[in-house]
C-alpha cells in the first residue's frame, strides 16, 4: 500500500460521517500532480519525448542517409562556421557522412538498446526476485549470493568480459548489459516481495486457495511495481551509456552503424582537427542520459511512498 492510499483512506474516513465518499482524483492525475511539481523532471520528460519522436521519424527528419559518403565534403565543419554549408548542418565526418543524419538515426539505436536491455533485465530480474522472495531457504540464499557476486564486479568490466566471450556486436553488448543490470531488479523485487508477503491480503488469497503462480503474479507483483518502474527508468540511461561505452571500445555496435558511442570511437583521432565529430555525439549522449535521469528522479519522487509528503 502506498502512502497515497493511506492519505486517501484518511479522507475517506473523514467523509464517512456524511455517509458519502468524496470523489477522488484518478491515480494518474495524482501521479501527475506530484510529478509536475518537479521542473527538472518535466524538462527531462519533454526532452525524452522529443528524442523518441526524432527516433520514430528519423527517416523523414534526416536530410541524408546515415551511411551515404559525400566524397567532396570530408570533415566539413558545421554550417555556422567558416567553410560549412547548409547542406550539412552539423558538418560531416572523416569519410563525408552527414553528422546530423547519423545522430538522428543514432537516436533509434539508443532507444532500441534502452528498451531491449530494460525489458530483458527487468523481466528476468523481476521473475528471479519473485522466485527468491517466495521460495526463501536455500534457493533464496543461492540466488542472492549469485547476485551479490555479479554486483561485486565493476559493471562495465563485467560487460566487457561477457562481450569478449560472446564476440563484439550490438546484440551481444545488449545481452551483456542486461545481465549486468539485472541483479538490481532481483534485489529490489525480492525486498518488495518480502515486505508484501506478511500482509493480510496475501494470507487471505492463500486461504481462498490461490496457487503459488497466482500469488506471485496476480496478488503480490502489482503491489511491488513502483520501485521497479523507477529502476527501469534509471537503468534505461545506464543501458544507453554502457552501450555507448562498449561501442567506444569497439565491442558494441560495429561501423558503419550510426550508434553514438561507435561514432565517438570512429572520430577519436580527429579530436584536435575537427571538434564537431566528437562533440555532437557526446552531447547527444549527455543530453539523453541527463533527461532520462531527471525524469527517473521525478518518477521516484512521485511513486516512492517514503518520499511523499503528507
Amino acid at each position: 500500500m502506498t502512502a497515497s492510499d493511506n492519505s486517501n483512506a484518511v479522507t475517506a474516513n473523514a467523509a464517512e460521517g456524511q455517509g458519502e465518499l468524496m470523489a477522488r482524483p484518478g491515480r494518474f492525475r495524482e501521479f501527475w500532480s506530484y510529478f509536475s511539481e518537479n521542473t527538472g523532471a518535466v524538462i527531462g520528460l519533454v526532452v525524452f519525448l522529443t528524442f523518441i519522436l526524432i527516433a520514430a521519424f528519423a527517416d523523414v527528419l534526416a536530410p541524408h542517409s546515415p551511411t551515404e559518403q559525400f566524397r567532396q565534403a570530408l570533415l566539413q565543419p558545421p554550417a555556422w562556421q567558416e567553410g560549412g554549408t547548409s547542406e550539412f548542418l552539423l558538418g560531416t565526418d572523416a569519410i563525408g557522412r552527414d553528422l546530423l543524419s547519423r545522430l538522428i538515426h543514432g537516436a533509434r539505436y539508443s532507444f532500441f538498446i534502452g528498451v531491449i536491455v530494460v525489458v530483458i533485465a527487468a523481466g528476468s530480474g523481476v521473475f528471479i526476485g519473485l522466485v527468491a522472495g517466495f521460495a526463501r531457504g536455500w534457493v533464496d540464499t543461492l540466488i542472492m549470493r549469485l547476485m551479490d557476486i555479479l554486483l561485486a564486479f565493476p559493471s562495465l568490466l563485467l560487460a566487457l568480459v561477457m562481450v569478449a566471450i560472446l564476440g563484439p556486436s550490438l546484440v551481444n553488448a545488449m545481452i551483456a548489459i542486461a545481465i549486468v543490470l539485472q541483479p538490481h531488479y532481483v534485489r529490489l523485487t525480492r525486498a518488495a516481495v518480502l515486505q508484501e508477503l506478511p500482509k493480510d491480503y496475501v494470507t487471505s488469497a492463500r486461504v481462498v486457495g490461490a496457487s503459488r503462480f497466482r500469488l506471485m503474479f496476480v496478488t503480490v507483483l502489482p503491489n511491488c511495481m513502483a520501485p521497479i518502474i523507477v529502476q527501469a527508468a534509471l537503468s534505461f540511461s545506464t543501458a544507453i551509456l554502457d552501450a555507448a561505452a562498449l561501442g567506444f571500445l569497439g565491442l558494441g555496435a560495429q561501423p558503419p552503424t550510426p550508434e553514438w558511442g561507435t561514432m565517438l570511437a570512429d572520430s577519436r583521432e580527429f579530436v584536435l582537427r575537427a571538434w564537431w565529430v566528437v562533440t555532437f555525439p557526446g552531447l547527444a549522449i549527455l543530453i539523453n542520459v541527463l533527461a532520462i535521469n531527471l525524469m527517473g528522479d521525478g518518477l521516484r519522487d512521485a511513486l516512492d511512498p517514503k518520499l511523499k509528503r503528507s
Partner: protein
Amino acid sequence: MDNTLIEARGLSRHYDVSNGFFGGTATVKALSNASFTLQAGRTLAVVGESGCGKSTLARVVTMIEKPSSGELTLDGHHIRSDEPLTDAQQAELRASVQIVFQDPFGSLNPRQTIGRILEEPVLINRPDVTKAQREQQAREMLAMVGLRPEHYDRYPHMFSGGQRQRIAVARALMLEPRILVLDEPVSALDLSIQSQILNLLVELQERLNLAYLFISHDLSVVRHMADDVMVMYLGRVVEKGAASEVFDAPRHPYTRALLSATPVADPTREQTRIRLEGELPSPLNPPAGCAFNPRCWKAEERCRQSAPELDEQEAHPVACYFPL
C-alpha cells in the same frame, strides 16, 4: 441433533525458534491442548491478552498452519497433524471455513477492485462458474453486507475502515462457508463503526446459520456476541463455558481479573479492579506449574509444582486448583 461444525481435541501448535547461532532451538507452545466444539448458528468467543495464542488458534482452524498435534474435525473432515490433506480435501475445506482479519487496511489487495476481490475466491475454487454469474454473486454479496452496487468498480483505498471490513466479510462469505473465523474483526475500527459491523455479523449469522469463532480481547464486544466463551492464557485454555456463566460467575482468577478490567458505564457501581502484577511471561520460558502462578494472588505451593488440568466433562470447566 448434530450440527457440530468444529470439534477440536487436544489441539496444539508449537514453533521451533532458533536461539541464535549457539543457542540451539527452543520450542514455543503457542497453543497447547485446546479442546472445544462449535455448532452451526453459534458463536464461540476466544478471549485473552495479546500473545495468548488466540490468533494461532485462528490460523490453525483456517488451515493457514497445520496443528502440531491433536485432532481437528471441520465440517465432517478430519485433519490430523501427521497426514497432509489432499488437494481435493483442502478445496472442500476452504469452502467451509473462511477468515476475516483484524486490519481492514491490510486485508484487501490495494491493486484490485472490489469486484475482483469478491470474485477471486469463486474464480479460484469454482472454475465452472461463468463470469456473468460471478459478477452477479459479487453484486448480491455487496448488497447483503450493506454496500451499494456502484462500489463494485472501486478500489479499497476509496473506502473507510468500516466499509472495508464489510468488504472483507463479503469476500469471506463468497464461497458460502459454514464457519467464519473472525480474528478481532472490530478492534481496528472506531467505536461507532464497531457496533455497525457487529450488528451486521449478528444479522448474517441469523440469516445464513453461520458458526462464528470470534477472537477478541474486548470483553464488552464478546458479551454482546458470544454464546460460549473460552479464556486463554499463554497458549492454554484456562476456562470455558456459556457466556452468561463465565461473565457472571468467573471461576478462574485470570478471568476474574480480565473482567474487572473492563470499564462499566455505571458510575455508582463500585470498582473492584484486580490489578495483576508483572507481565505476561515469555512463551519461550513459561513458569513451572500453572502458567498464571507468578501473577496470581491465590497461588500456593501446589500451583508452582504442577499445572492444573481442565476437566472436559464439566459444564463450566476451569484449569485451576483454587477456583473462585
